[in-house]
């Protein structure tokens, strides 16, 4: 999500834009594609990503009085979406824990050590590794590396200070440390 999205949509950045219902609707719809892309990075599933964005749009509509500046709409919307994504991630982790207690956890096939992994398998393995992280660490990694945001914006999206965001990233990287060679499914 970048502020350029607003400019491309031709929306005049002013406080009055977001304060009227139609103006706010235009702002939301301008940012919806970027939000959908971010949601997909979190979920890796088209339907779930659309669900996440729908919830975020409805949340944003209900809290629209909190948006003072239309230029800040992007980070503001992203923060709402990230909140939703973090909650979803937490619920999934709990569900996976319950499943593992019942022995219903999906088991990964262990590839041969010297197997050449293609890009899709690497991506899937990376996503599974990120999904196994605590919610905020996973969100920090997604925002920093997949979305390409600087640490300060990662912190804003997570609603934490920059130092805390750095700690999340540091801990996540330590857990995600790839083995030598290609990233293998673990």
């Amino acid at each position: 999500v970048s502020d350029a999205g607003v400019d491309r949509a031709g929306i005049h950045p002013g406080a009055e834009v977001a304060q009227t219902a139609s103006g706010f609707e235009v702002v939301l719809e301008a940012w919806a594609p970027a939000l959908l892309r971010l949601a997909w990075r979190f979920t890796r599933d088209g339907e779930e990503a659309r669900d996440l964005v729908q919830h975020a749009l409805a949340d944003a509509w209900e809290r629209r009085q909190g948006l003072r500046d239309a230029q800040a709409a992007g980070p503001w919307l992203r923060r709402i979406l990230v909140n939703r994504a973090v909650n979803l991630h937490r619920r999934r982790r709990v569900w996976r824990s319950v499943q593992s207690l019942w022995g219903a956890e999906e088991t990964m096939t262990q590839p041969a050590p010297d197997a050449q992994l293609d890009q899709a398998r690497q991506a899937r393995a990376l996503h599974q590794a990120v999904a196994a992280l605590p919610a905020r660490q996973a969100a920090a990694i997604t925002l920093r590396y997949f979305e390409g945001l600087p640490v300060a914006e990662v912190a804003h999206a997570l609603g934490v200070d920059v130092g805390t965001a750095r700690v999340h990233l540091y801990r996540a990287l330590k857990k995600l440390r790839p083995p030598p060679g290609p990233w293998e499914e673990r």
Partner: protein
Amino acid sequence: MRCRDVEREILEGAALPEAAVEHLAGCAACRTLNDAHRAMQALAGTQRHPSLPVPDLASALARRRRTQVKLWAAMGAATAAVALAAWVVTSPRPAQPAEDDSAWQTLPPLLAFVDGMLERELGPTDFAYRPFGELAVWLAPTEDPLDEFTPTLPEEEP
């Protein structure tokens, strides 16, 4: 540079300053973090997202309304169920009639009657009921019904 400063430089992702590069050469922990950061950047750069239909605000709000209606309906049903249960528990019950102990008062005479019937000495006339069974013998009236038919014999003259 200290490890903390180098970690900050690594996580920011900018080109590392000369001092950080020198630090990496002698610090295995920071070097490992730097490797992980570079690997993540390389892998994340290969991720492509599919093109998906973008949800619009109207459908999002309609969905939210449907969810809220369902939520309110569920809450209403739950409240009604709780209220009904509370009403059933706390409502005054219809007055129960006072316990009639007359049955207990009549029991001793009844028992005495039965007892009298069963424990009396059997007389010769009781055995007249034997053809009707042993029970008939025991249920025979205490007074001999044949008494009234017993002819009164005239007194013998001396």
